[in-house]
């Protein structure tokens, strides 16, 4: 069997597994977020929080909950790192410097998981397990909560109420993320991912002497890192490290975990708005882009254009033998089209065009299928834009799911899509204009520019992967990337929740013969087109200077 065929078969197997899993999981999540009943453990948690899970919140209150919880998360994680030197279970690792601790705290709370540190030589058991891994769960649950609030905005009418943030947060953790992650973690251990508290210890070697390993709760963190589309590796090499991703099976399994909740949420959406066909239209849009990107990636990586890859005879630099080009290509696309940023191969050493595809995936706003929660709300914003464009063409007030898309709604949607491009392009331009940030580049020329463009794209879109040649542990990058992550996460959330509140207040408009049928393939086509055109127009000049210049020269 040729490697290309094996790659395609892996893609097909993945699609089949996701098609099977998304219906029950999507339906289950719809029940979770609609149920009136509380589990006993949840009641204990609500008591611990001191919150009443049954009070419905209007959008400002919901937003305040999101912000307060996230602020507490940043503060706690920052302090945990600053105090690492005196915490027990820290393996003798010292406190993290202030700028790096700020960057890392923001990074994990915003579901970005950008890492300017080397996991195995900087973070002890306590910070990894009780700090970083916790944010893997709760930042994912916050994303899901905001997405569900927007879905309720469509589903409800004549009320401004969007649900209870604390209930949505706790249910996302307790009923969705923890059970799936626990099962997945055990599967990973069974395949060879490590799970112990042995710390740093010596292991003998074949040629004599010994090597030093850093053991830890790796599998448990790996499972939620993928499932919650977080992506922060326990080790520096992330999911390329054999202790995180030991076999070809775990590789595909981890990609499955990355895509599982984002795709399933389209079903949740369909069920909650009372039309699963609307969910299918969104799912089809996401799947079309994702499959298209995988195909492009496999094409360019198997073609392996580029001086070094040509001489080597294959695109294996930065890739593991057990995954090969096919498995690495699927992983790279899936991690950058979601907000994951975990890597099983190093994007900086991909072909010029392959690196461009990973960047473009993030620039789409990570909506195909996107991060847990953030993918769905990002895609629904794009759907509103698409409906609006269609409305302009026929001269009719646009509607989506029985709600009028008026001036107010379209303003919120437009602001949403402007935030991340503004952050990416402005920060990249400033970094290129200043004398010192360029010193962090490993590669020169077009690829050096790509390293910086990639960094801000990754941060503002909350992805977290990198063209890792960039030495990002400088005060400039730690600070500006941290700011980009914060603004890229929470400013869009403000617009999403404001939009949700505005939609929930409306009374539904009955569908007429003139209503655009948003559950039809025609709309999916329109939506795919709108996404590609809007992103293309925004980023084409920047992409031309970086990956396109490199890829076309090869």
């Amino acid at each position, binding site marked *: 069997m040729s490697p290309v065929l094996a790659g395609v078969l892996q893609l097909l197997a993945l699609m089949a597994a996701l098609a099977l899993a998304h219906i029950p999981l999507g339906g289950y999540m719809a029940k979770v977020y609609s149920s009136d009943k509380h589990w006993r453990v949840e009641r204990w948690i609500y008591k*611990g929080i001191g919150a009443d899970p049954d009070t419905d919140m209007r959008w400002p209150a919901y937003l305040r909950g999101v912000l307060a*919880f996230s602020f507490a998360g940043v503060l706690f994680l920052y302090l945990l790192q600053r105090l690492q030197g005196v915490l027990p279970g820290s393996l003798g690792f010292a406190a993290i410097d202030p700028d790096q601790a700020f960057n890392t705290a923001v990074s994990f709370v915003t579901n970005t998981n950008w890492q300017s540190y080397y996991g195995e030589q900087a973070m002890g058991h306590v910070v990894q397990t009780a700090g970083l891994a*916790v944010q893997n769960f709760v930042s994912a649950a916050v994303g899901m909560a905001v997405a569900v609030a927007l879905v309720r905005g469509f589903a409800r009418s004549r009320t401004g109420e969007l649900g209870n943030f604390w209930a949505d947060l706790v249910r996302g953790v307790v009923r969705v993320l*923890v059970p799936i992650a626990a099962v997945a973690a055990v599967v990973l251990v069974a395949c060879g991912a490590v799970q112990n508290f042995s710390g740093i210890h010596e292991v003998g070697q074949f040629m004599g002497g010994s090597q030093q390993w850093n053991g830890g709760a790796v599998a*448990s963190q790996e499972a939620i890192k993928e499932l919650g589309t977080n992506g922060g590796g326990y080790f520096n090499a992330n999911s*390329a490290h054999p202790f995180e991703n030991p076999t070809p099976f775990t590789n595909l399994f981890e990609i499955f975990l990355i895509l599982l909740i984002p795709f399933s949420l389209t079903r949740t959406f369909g069920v909650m708005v009372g039309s699963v066909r609307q969910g299918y239209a969104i799912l089809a849009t996401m799947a079309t882009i994702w499959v298209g990107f995988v195909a492009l990636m496999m094409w360019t990586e198997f073609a392996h254009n580029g001086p070094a890859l040509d001489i080597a005879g294959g695109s294996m630099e930065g890739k593991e033998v057990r995954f090969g080009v096919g498995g690495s290509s699927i992983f790279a696309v899936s991690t950058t089209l979601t907000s994951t940023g975990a890597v099983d191969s*190093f994007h900086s050493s991909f072909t010029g065009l392959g690196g461009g595809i990973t960047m473009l995936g993030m620039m789409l706003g990570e909506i195909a299928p996107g991060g847990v929660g953030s993918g769905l709300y990002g895609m629904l914003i794009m759907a509103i834009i698409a409906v609006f464009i269609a409305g302009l063409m026929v001269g009719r007030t646009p509607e989506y799911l029985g709600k009028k898309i008026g001036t107010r709604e379209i303003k919120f949607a437009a602001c949403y899509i402007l935030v991340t491009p503004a952050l990416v392009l402005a920060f990249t331009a400033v970094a290129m204009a200043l004398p010192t940030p360029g010193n962090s580049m490993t590669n020169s020329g077009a*690829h050096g520019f790509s390293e910086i463009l990639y960094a801000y794209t990754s941060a503002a879109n909350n992805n977290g992967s990198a063209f890792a040649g960039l030495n990002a542990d400088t005060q400039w990058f730690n600070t500006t990337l941290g700011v980009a992550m914060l603004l890229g996460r929470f400013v869009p959330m403000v617009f999403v929740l404001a939009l949700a509140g505005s939609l929930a207040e409306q009374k539904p408009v009955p569908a007429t013969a003139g209503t655009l049928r948003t559950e039809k393939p025609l709309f999916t086509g329109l939506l795919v087109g709108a996404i590609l055109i809007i992103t293309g127009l925004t980023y084409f000049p920047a992409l031309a200077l970086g990956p396109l210049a*490199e890829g076309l020269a090869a």
Partner: protein
Amino acid sequence: MNTSLTNTARLLVAGLRALLVLTVVTGIVYPLVVTGIGQGLFPGKANGSEIKADGQVVGSSLIGQSYDLPLGKGQETPEPDLKWFQGRPQNGLGTNSVNTQYELILSGATNRSADNEELVQWVKDAKAAVVKDNSVGGYTVKPSDVPADAVTSSGSGLDPDISPQYADIQVHRVAEKNGLPVDQVQKLVDEHTEGRTLGFLGEPRVNVLELNIALREQVAAS
């Protein structure tokens, strides 16, 4: 003003309490339960898949090693010990710089781009070395026989595997250096070649450490 301040403070306290409670669930209970199950059911795998030879732990079947000669005087980079099968280049493997009380293995890739001149040179040098080292006693390796994994560094720097093609071109050299028949070494490689999982997952591969352990046993027996 006062009430809004109190409200903000109350909200922040709620946020902090929520974080602490969820930390107990996801940061303490969850990893401990997974560790308990993992250590109970799969202790070998949960602890790093160590493998032993002659009762001694010689590494992990998942972590690649170097098979080099001891450093000579004034040498900075060690020479490969050509008696043993060689793994992939490890140009991206870092050394501990933050916590220098340890000599941890620091995983990592080179992150060099496809048009990076340094990478071009590394690949050229590696290819020349593979051709030279493995062309022995009437057996010639052509540059076009050298597979890509033999001349590129992996993502982790710790890749435990090589492609079967790379193992195959090393057979003659290893046989000669160890005084074993070529057929016997080739058989060893074939036995240690693992196909794609279920026929389509990943790529065929040879675990270098396991192969070298088996080789050492045969050398000792001959």
